């Protein structure tokens, strides 16, 4: 039985559903089969993963000394209340 192949253009629209585990087992198999044979889509999926990984590294803003001081003063006020 010939199942219809996904095109690259379809794959890039399914990548989030794939990573979120939202594809049916059948769709998932077609997705993985396509990517395994397609260099362009392999790179694409890697780039999406790299993007997510980089987003996870966005630096924390720093708390200004002034803001921290204000919060600690609020804490002392609370403690003595």
């Amino acid at each position: 039985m010939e199942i219809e192949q996904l095109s690259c253009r379809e794959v890039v629209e399914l990548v989030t559903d794939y990573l979120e585990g939202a594809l049916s087992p059948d769709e998932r198999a077609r997705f993985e089969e396509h990517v395994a044979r397609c260099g362009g889509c392999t790179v694409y999926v890697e780039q999406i993963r790299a993007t997510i990984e980089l987003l996870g590294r966005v630096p924390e803003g720093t708390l200004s000394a002034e803001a921290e001081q204000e919060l600690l003063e609020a804490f002392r006020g609370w403690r003595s209340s």
Partner: protein
Amino acid sequence: MERLRRRDEGAFAALVRMYNASLVRVARIYVSTMAAAEEVAQETWLAVLNGIDRFEGRSSLRTWIFRILTNIAKTRAQRDGRTLPFSALQDPGGVPEAAVDADRFLDPEHPRWPGHWASRPVGWPEERLLAGETMEVLERAVEALPASQRAVLTLRDIEGWSSEEVRNALEISETNQRVLLHRARSKVRRALESYLQEDD
């Protein structure tokens, strides 16, 4: 937790250092200015202190703090008459957005390779990915997203929330969350690609 209940200042300071930046970032989703977001975070800390004796530990401390934050932020947004990006959150449909420009692909009617890459993406050099400048490009791309997409991406990928936590905080369906996340990640990838390839 226990130390906080015992009024230990060091424990409070540690908690503030650990979570304040995240609180401000999440508050910023709801309110319109950075200053308002910082105020919401401040107010949250006061509410945490005032509520700590009643906190029963049914959820994690982190979950509890963020629940207080989102409540305060929503109230504040309402008071400021700001409508959240939530109409867009409820219906992200609208104009379909392609993850990748159509001209990167061959024609869907192409005899041999319909919808196949015409111009394939090229692997990114690892060492440039980690450069500070790349991070700036990334942050600008996030800033440039429509509010609803930025909200979902910030919570999921920057703050690392689960999809369930994001659905609850933003009151959206799983499908809408996924559509918004997809569009947001696709755009950020595209920004990174055009930056990393421009001087090859």
